[in-house]
């Protein structure tokens, strides 16, 4: 087992109130090792498929930027990595079959020849990329499809649930999926669902100009990965009910799938416990509430576990209980996870133009932002879009903000201020505006026309 992984559990108020039912908010952290000071160890081999939308709507700048980003990925790969390039509209074209990246100039030239045309067979393009990747699966390498689209899937299979299910099944077999939505017309529900189920990352760019940054972020993440397939097992003790607030998928064995871990990062879960049985707890006792354990896969495919941890809290009288201070870092994550749920719903409300519900969601979210400067900035961005009655962009911003608030890995050394993130790797930075580059962080500023 690689040393340096840690599992910890902390409650917002580390105490229980005697003689009463209790609600306890808990933060579970799974921390990766620090990045070695001498630099990251050699990253695992990558086996990537770059799947590029070449439908008519991509004509001009979007396709240019997509090709530039794809060329960047090719340029960043090593000769021991593999890459394929697939372009799709209503037809699927394998621009470059999966091959070792030994002739970068040739691959870049093939990418440069991609031209826009036709409709959007998104599923077909993804599947072709997945096939290219699956043909060269090997242990110890990271296999991923990077799917870019600016439009709605309108050819081939288009059912979101079915496509997401396929992404999930394929991720089980070792091929993950990251998605890149570009512009205003792509289907954010589909792209987020594919990334979530495909156990990759979901990115979106309001403009082609910020697309490159998303690819750089993904590449930095892939280079710093140190644990995959991280699963959290929770066992509430008798008399305790637990609710997980993050948007995690349940694995068949009942565990929760957390994001892959990179050096310096932490995956986390916000859990709400309800301890029933008034009169059950007497002051002076200690009460076991929740058992947690972590399983994950190391990069060489070895299965590892972190030792089981039990959350035990002392039971206190009312006065003693009130004297125990609350842990701000726990309240912050609880607020962010709850806000994520509300904004996920608000995204759908915005999509159908139900501004009353959007305003209500913002109303519910504002007080939560008191604990989280990041959330405050996210809310400010969303308020700006709501004020403009910008249905399309609110829906996108809210759903991606929701996803990032709920399940993005965080810096182990995170402080509430997001300004401190500047020195962190890109994939650990918290963005105020999900669809823009990290440089444009002024909240509330309308999109340049």
């Amino acid at each position, binding site marked *: 087992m690689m040393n340096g992984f840690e599992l910890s559990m902390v409650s917002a108020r580390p105490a229980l109130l005697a003689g009463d039912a209790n609600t306890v908010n808990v933060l579970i952290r799974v921390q990766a090792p620090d990045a070695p000071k001498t630099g990251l160890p050699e990253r695992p081999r990558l086996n990537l498929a770059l799947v590029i939308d070449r439908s008519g709507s991509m004509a001009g700048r979007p396709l240019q930027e997509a090709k530039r980003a794809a060329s960047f990925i090719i340029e960043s790969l090593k000769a021991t990595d593999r890459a394929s390039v697939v372009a799709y509209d209503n037809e699927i074209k394998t621009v470059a079959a999966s091959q070792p990246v030994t002739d970068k100039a040739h691959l870049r030239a093939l990418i440069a020849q991609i031209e826009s045309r036709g409709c959007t067979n998104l599923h077909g393009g993804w599947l072709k990329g*997945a096939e290219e990747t699956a043909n060269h699966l090997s242990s110890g390498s990271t296999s991923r499809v990077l799917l870019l689209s600016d439009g709605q899937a309108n050819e081939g299979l288009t059912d979101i649930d079915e496509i997401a299910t396929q992404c999930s099944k*394929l991720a089980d077999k070792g091929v993950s999926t990251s998605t890149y939505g570009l512009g205003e017309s792509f289907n954010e529900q589909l792209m987020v669902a594919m990334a979530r189920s495909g156990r990759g990352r979901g990115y979106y760019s309001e403009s082609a100009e910020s697309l490159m940054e998303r690819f750089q972020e993904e590449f930095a993440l892939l280079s710093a990965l140190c644990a995959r397939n991280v699963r959290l097992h929770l066992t509430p003790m008798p008399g305790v009910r637990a609710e997980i607030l993050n948007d995690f998928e*349940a694995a068949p064995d009942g565990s929760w799938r957390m994001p892959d871990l990179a050096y310096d990062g932490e995956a986390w879960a916000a859990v709400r416990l309800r301890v029933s049985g008034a009169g059950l707890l007497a002051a002076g006792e200690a009460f076991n509430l929740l058992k947690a354990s972590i399983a994950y896969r190391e990069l060489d495919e070895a299965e590892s576990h972190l030792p089981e941890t039990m959350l035990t809290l002392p039971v206190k009288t009312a006065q003693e209980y009130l004297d125990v201070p609350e842990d701000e870092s726990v309240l912050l994550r609880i607020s962010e996870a709850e806000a994520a749920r509300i904004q996920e719903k608000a995204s759908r409300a915005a999509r159908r133009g139900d501004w009353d519900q959007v305003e209500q969601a913002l109303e519910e979210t504002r007080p939560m932002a008191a604990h989280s400067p990041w959330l405050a900035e996210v809310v400010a961005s969303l308020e700006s879009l709501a004020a403009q009655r910008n249905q399309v962009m609110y829906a996108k911003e809210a759903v991606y903000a929701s996803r990032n608030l709920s399940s993005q890995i965080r810096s182990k050394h995170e402080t509430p201020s997001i300004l401190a993130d500047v020195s962190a790797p890109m994939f650990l930075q918290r963005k105020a505006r999900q669809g823009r580059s990290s440089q444009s962080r002024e909240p509330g500023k309308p999109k340049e026309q």
Partner: protein
Amino acid sequence: MVGSNRDKALAGTVWTVEELIEAAERVIAADPVLFSHPESETNKELNIRLIRDYVVREFIPRPERVGREGRFGLDHLVYLLAVRMLLRSQKWSLPAIKASFATTSPEELLGGLLAPIRDRIEAEYWSASGVARTQDATASQRVRTPDLNPAQLLIEQFKTNGRGASSSKSPSKAFSSQLADFAKAVSCPTPKPTAGVSRKLHLELEPWCEVVIDAQRIDSLTREEVERLGEALKSRLKDESAR
């Protein structure tokens, strides 16, 4: 023990008894929690004697005889894993298992109790036999696609799935299909080591109507429960609209 459903064997035989045990052990090792007894640390090992015992008790069909050797197939593996799961993590009694198996086909077990590990079970079979199932073929109609890894096999299935799929799907249709998906899952509750830990899932039936359910509970919904839910929803909506 012979039941009408049970007679629907899945496919040909590919394993000796030792190989069957090895295949079962690999599946169990990948998801040990599904096969562990909640009150017992030790997991009784599979061995030839135990397999014989299961055959005698008619939990597992008799093996096919090839000369002096017994040969086992996918249905044997399915029944073996089902017995282990029911005995260990679900704490069923032997008579209850016997009664249940009399009317349950291997395909029903794969689609129900064993659904969470179906892929792994079938991969064992494919790996042993070098055959893969196409999406539309029944289990007994398998085609040869040797040397494909599990991801490639899955993609072959998806290709068949995706062909000609319709893109128009009304919200109410989506809901029916979601309910159908719930119903297909299980006839027995799958073990949940995290029982008591929930996550809320919001199902938008129409833009103006949303159902909030426990995401993990879906996995253990029976068809009867789904039907009851549907009826309850209908009756509640009628009551509300009559006010």
